[in-house]
């Protein structure tokens, strides 16, 4: 035991003693919440879209669970060494999409034989790990101001790469991840406040000031979507989507319409399987279904916070913070959008929205959280034993 605390760690060396006992140290609630959500997704898709999509989603979920279990057994700390490589990989992936033909007007997918995947989804995870690594490195060597600037800059570069795909939603997720990592890294309130103010100014410029002077930083439709929830009576496509989503949710009532969920089945609800998956869920299974999904997300986030608190080192805390930020941003913005209290951004609802990349990435993220939890618990138990002995 004492050797692990005194000897410097060499690259590639095991930092934690192999498990001696087969204790159920992993967090069953965390993985359980993820599996629960993918089950909800299966039930929803089966009614709203069709059984073939539902089955594919279940297969993605299965692959995701396996990956999560594999990842949870790896010590995440080793990923720190590859931070540069991970960041570079993310840049390559996000740039690569521009080399392929657009699908439905957007360049978000990289086609591979047999399937295609959404690079920006994987980018989220790569960015989280890479930024956490950079932040840990910089925590001592640089002044706080420079660390803040670097981390935020790295996140912004990634965001600016995906926004023109166009994928504004993922771009905003990247920014949120950067902010969360700084937040959990202990950046001073002054810097955080400054960042929020900067972001607010940039948003105002992009949405209000720039169009007024004739420069369209973001697409007109994106502005429309972001502001539609503020005045839903306006007769444009975005307001229509919001309206139909609220009809769908409201029509679900307490226990849902089941197979008679016409809003999602007959196509009145736009994107019933992806962007408006929660509305489909709420129409088909009603308030009961919606509340179960909300509860599962709450469970997921609570366990993520728990992983953050038990993490054995800052790197783990930051990865957990980034993942939590990703989950929070996507869940709250997406659900908020469908119930009419947040702007429309095309962020998928983790695990509920149909889509292999998103499901697999979310499960890998859960796997990482599990790894943080397991490593933290193991380290703690080791420490306890050391103290006792």
């Amino acid at each position: 035991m004492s050797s692990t605390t005194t000897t410097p760690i060499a690259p590639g060396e095991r930092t934690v003693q192999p498990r001696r006992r087969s204790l159920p140290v992993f967090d069953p609630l965390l993985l359980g919440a993820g599996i629960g959500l993918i089950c909800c997704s299966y039930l929803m898709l089966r009614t709203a879209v069709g059984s073939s999509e539902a089955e594919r989603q279940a297969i993605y979920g299965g692959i995701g669970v396996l990956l999560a279990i594999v990842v949870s057994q790896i010590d995440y700390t080793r990923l720190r060494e590859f931070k540069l490589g991970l960041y570079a990989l993310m840049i390559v992936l996000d740039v690569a999409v521009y080399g392929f033909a657009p699908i439905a007007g957007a360049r978000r997918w990289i086609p591979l034989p047999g399937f295609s995947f959404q690079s920006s989804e994987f980018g989220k995870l790569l960015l989280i790990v890479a930024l956490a690594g950079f932040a840990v490195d910089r925590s001592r060597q640089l002044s706080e101001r420079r660390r803040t600037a670097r981390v935020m800059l790295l996140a912004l570069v990634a965001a600016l790469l995906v926004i023109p795909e166009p994928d504004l939603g993922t771009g905003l997720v990247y920014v949120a991840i950067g902010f969360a990592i700084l937040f959990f890294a202990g950046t001073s309130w002054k810097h955080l406040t400054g960042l929020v103010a900067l972001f607010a100014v940039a948003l105002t410029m992009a949405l209000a000031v720039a169009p007024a002077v004739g420069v369209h930083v973001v697409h007109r439709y994106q502005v429309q979507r972001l502001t539609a929830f503020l005045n839903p009576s306006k007769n444009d496509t975005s307001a229509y989507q919001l309206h139909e989503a609220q009809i769908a949710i409201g029509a679900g009532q307490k226990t849902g319409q089941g197979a008679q969920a016409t809003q999602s089945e007959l196509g009145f609800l736009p994107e019933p399987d992806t962007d408006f998956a929660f509305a489909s869920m709420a129409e088909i299974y009603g308030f009961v279904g919606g509340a179960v999904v909300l509860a599962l997300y709450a469970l997921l986030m609570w366990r993520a916070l728990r992983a953050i608190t038990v993490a054995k080192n800052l790197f783990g805390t930051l990865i957990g913070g980034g993942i939590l930020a990703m989950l929070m941003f996507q869940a709250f913005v997406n659900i908020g959008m469908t119930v009419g209290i947040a702007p429309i951004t095309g962020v998928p609802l983790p695990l509920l929205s149909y889509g292999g990349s998103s499901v697999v990435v979310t499960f890998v993220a859960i796997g990482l959280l599990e790894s943080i939890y397991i490593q933290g618990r193991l380290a703690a138990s080791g420490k306890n034993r050391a103290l006792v002995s």
Partner: protein
Amino acid sequence: MPEPIDERRSPMTPQLALRVAIVGSVVLALFAILFFRLWFLQVLTGNQYVAQAQVNKTRSVVIPAERGEILDRTGKSVLVSSTKALTVQIVPTELPVKMSLVNIRHPPARDAAVFDRLAHVLNMKTKAKRCTIYAPDHRHPRLSPIGCDVAKELSLQPYGNVTIKQKTSKYIQYYVAEHQNQYRGVQVQETSIPGYPHGTLAAQVLGTVGQISREELKSGNYPGASQGEVVGQTGLEAQYDQYLRGRNGKQQVQVNAQGIPTGTVTSKQPTAGHNLQTSLDVALQRAGQASLAESVATNGGGAGGAFVAMNPTNGEIYAMGSNPSFDPSVFTGPISQKQYNREFGPSANDPLFNRATQAAGPTGSTFKPITATAALQSGEWSIAQTFDDTGQYCVGSGAATQCRHNAGGAVDGVLNLVSALKVSSDDFFYHLGALLNPNNPYTHPNGGPLQQWARNFGIGRNPGIDLPDATRGTLPDPRWRNQRNRLEAQCDAGKGQFKYVNAARSYSSHPRKGYHRKPKTAAGSCGIADGTNRPWSIGDAESLAVGQGDVQVSPLQLARAYSAIANGGWLVTPHIGLNIENADGTVLQKVGPDPHKRNLHINPLYLQTIREGLHEAAQTPGGTSDDVMGNFPRTVYGKTGTAQYQPPGQGEVDYAWYSCFVPASATSKPIEVTVWVEKGGFGDAAAAPVARQILSQWFLGKLGPFTSGTSTTL
């Protein structure tokens, strides 16, 4: 090798604990918000969204019912046929952007795109052309042909469907149905199109059909009808609409967001309308219309006329015509403004107007049998009593003496009732009129025996026929005259119901002032009465006795009165509808007015005398219509009439009348014929020959030569 200090520090610093707590609180708060929002949407206000979702998913599709046919008296010849045809319609409220009166001049771009696509499919032009809309501003926007159709139809019928093309092919129907998202607001469905195999035959009697208007829909006269449905507008089509129309079927179709049907929820099959068998005789109708048209053209200068041929014993109408006529088939398809003006405009003399039931005028001498009945029944005159016709008849004495003369100054000598009817002596009947006049008009506001008997014969009353808008005409009496005088005085003073002029147009621009007041005008300027405020006088009674002056009778009313003389004193109810049948001819229901006849209780001897006078007038030498009817091989009882009518601002014109009846023969039923030719001159010259042709067709089965009479009595 970097020193992994952070690896070894305790992860839970107080700072991190604080931040985790903050994030946890934020997560908790956000979940609370979402939870309550979901609660609000689904549990508190869920019902309203259920209703909206319901509206979203179903569309009602109407399956039009086939309209019934109108048949002649044999039930074999079809007067109005009904054929099913695929019709392309635009439903303005279902277009991508709703169209209404506000935007007909500038169709929204998305609607215009639908029009252009439809035009392409139907092989119509899309180029914008000048389009005449019947709108108050008289502007002519440039629109594509379909846009123009929509604009025109909407300006006339703001809530109707617009028919773009009839008799289209199945292919179009399938194409539009398959591309419903590109053709929102376009419907292709089978509708009934009326056909008129006999062209203009009995056009005003049969009537027209058209889309129900908003007012008609509200009126409740068309039970079960819905917006866009085709209903009877005039004539028999309107009268028997409830039987002819049938009931539309309805299909509740579940549709998806693109409006493409995904399944049928409920379906109600349409019920076809029933057929109407009428009492009309096609051959007689054709003969009557042809000879009336000939007389109107040669004698009446094309002004118009009407005839009624009916069974005097039970009121069945054999034939009823009004000239000028029209071909109702022009209303089944789109009609251009030019064509409408040509056929129905001011210069066309109102062909839509059924002069046999809706027009009324003084009847001239054809009124005399009514006067004779009144005189005999009231005891003011007897069969044997005579009167010396010296060529003039005077009342009053001294300077107040007023004299009237026979037409052409004829002197007919000593006359009894029969010979007075034969030669149509005006002086004789002036005398009867004077005798029948109440001594004190104030104590007898309804007049004397003359008015009473005229009412008994149905003059001034609703004839009760099964056609809409039959006129009651006018029977003048002291009360009526006083009322007219009062109205004229009110109008001259600009008071009462005549307070405002041209209310529709002259609304003042200043809202408080309301409509422009009608100024005071000179007495008699309104044309309701002559302005002298004169009360009922003996002269009015004399005029009424010979069917001149203020009395107004429709040809149908006169035919009904003569029927009573023909059938022994029973007032019958004229009717055209006989039976409601289903498609294979099974009678479902007898219709038409109650066959009830009212007994007028006329002494048979008096009736005998009057008939004798009518027969002598028609078929003995010296009778007023002997030169026309004399050689007809049946016993004819007939009376000529020449009504002197002075249209405002014009010279006097004579309206020709003839009314006659012939009893049943071994092979034919009895018939009563009344003919009226506007501006036709003498009754014997213009009206009697038409009646002769109708009788000829009825009894002999063929038309004879058309010969105008030469008698110049009134």
